[in-house]
């Protein structure tokens, strides 16, 4: 039991050191712009098909599930407002982050894990390159930049999916639908979407990199790094969601 507590404390200290090192190195030259852009392409562009499909389906399903409850009070005309608030405040950043932690987090964990066990990270270090800056800083920055962009895109695609459902059932026109959508959304809603997405993006990147960078020897270690990258980032995303909602509510009051 004492050993377990000791191991947990050591792990927490290592995580703290890792995160602090990121903030120290992110501002120090040389800057790996080319690698950051390449990683943004890997994280953002390559996730687009999956995010598009998921966002679109989320919009349709959420609208179809919400309609009966509003219909009971004869309030289906409120659907666009309800959908926009739900998608922008909660669903878009959360769905994007969960999809990205599965796709991107595991990829980063496995990639760095495999580089670690095949000594490619050591090879970088002995050839005068800072592997932390090249591998970790670039990936964490890429997820922190890409996830907010993807979240905004998910919101747009989700609202489009919801429009199809609203248009088919209530015969609402495109213009009326989006008028109601934008009327319901406040600056704080958009701010909360971006804030959440930035925090989620950072979490996915840093957790994936930490797991990969510290993976133990062997292929089993690579698998574990990929697995833990997903599990830990998803867990942290939900915790962060709760905290950010509290902060935004406090700002709203």
């Amino acid at each position, binding site marked *: 039991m004492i050993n377990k507590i000791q191991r947990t404390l050591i792990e927490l200290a290592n995580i703290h050191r890792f995160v602090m090192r990121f903030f120290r190195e992110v501002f120090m030259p040389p800057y790996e712009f080319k690698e950051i852009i390449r990683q943004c392409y890997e994280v953002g562009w390559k996730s687009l098909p999956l995010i598009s499909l998921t966002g679109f389906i989320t919009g349709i399903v959420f609208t179809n599930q919400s309609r009966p409850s509003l219909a009971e009070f004869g309030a289906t005309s409120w659907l666009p407002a309800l959908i926009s608030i739900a998608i922008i405040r909660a669903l878009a950043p959360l769905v994007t982050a969960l999809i990205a932690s599965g796709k991107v987090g595991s990829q980063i964990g496995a990639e760095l894990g495999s580089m670690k066990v*095949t*000594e*490619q990270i050591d090879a*970088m*270090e002995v050839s*005068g390159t800072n592997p932390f800056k090249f591998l970790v800083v670039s990936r964490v920055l890429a997820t922190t930049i890409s996830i907010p962009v993807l979240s905004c895109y998910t919101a747009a695609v989700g609202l489009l999916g919801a429009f199809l459902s609203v248009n088919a059932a209530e015969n609402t026109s495109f213009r009326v639908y989006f008028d109601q959508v934008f009327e319901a959304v406040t600056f704080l809603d958009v701010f909360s979407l971006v804030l959440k997405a930035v925090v989620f993006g950072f979490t996915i990147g840093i957790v994936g990199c930490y797991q990969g960078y510290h993976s133990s020897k062997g292929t089993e270690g690579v698998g574990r790094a990929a697995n833990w990258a997903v599990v830990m980032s998803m867990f942290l995303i939900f915790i962060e969601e709760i905290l950010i909602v509290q902060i935004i509510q406090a700002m709203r009051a």
Partner: protein
Amino acid sequence: MLKSGGHIDRSTQVITVRNVSKSFGDLHVLRGVDLHLFKGENLVVLGRSGTGKSVLIKLISGLLKPDSGTIEVLGEHVDELDEKALQQLRLKIGFSFQNSALYDSMTVRENLEFPLVRNKRHLSRAEINHEVEDVLDAVGLLHTINQMPSELSGGQRKRIGIARTLILRPEIMMYDEPTAGLDPITCIEINGLINEVQEKYKTSSIIITHDLACAKSVGDRIVMLLDGRFERQGNFDEIFDTDDERVKPFYDYNFIT
């Protein structure tokens, strides 16, 4: 055939290891090791698997920190250097890994360019291309320049790994098991390459191995790591002129069985 060793400057030590110990938990790998490498010398470190040979060169390169003792490389104390100074020192140390450690998402050209573009930022594209082609030519693999590491044989990967370290023109080379897992013909080629590198690039080298044919072919001096310490040193014949039961099986396995 034993090497002559006429090119060695015995008045200059490029690496000096004094009383270095290293443990991993309860496992004491190195117990007060002393070692020196002369300028221009090829020093072979022999020893059984798991005796800390690779740990030793990782300590010298600053990839690991010793528990106690001092390591001096080219006049600088490795364990006292900050990150930036260590990075500068590493440019003078080439490290050839046991499994080559090529970046598997990059082509051979990109693997070789990687250390160059980051450490010699003033070079033009034409100069980078020239350097890459020159060093690939030196290891006889210019034709693989656009291939991925996964398309190369074990011997070719080793050669490319060596080329990648040579591109920064290091003063010291570290070879970690350069012939492990290779067929005898390729082993002879790699041994030849190590000697060519020593001659052409005027490097001083530490070669970690348990392949005695390699040790005999490339070593100007051989040291043997036994129970966490260097207990024997000399040329090939001097090392194995003993009845020590910890040493004899090495020779018997390689040259009698």
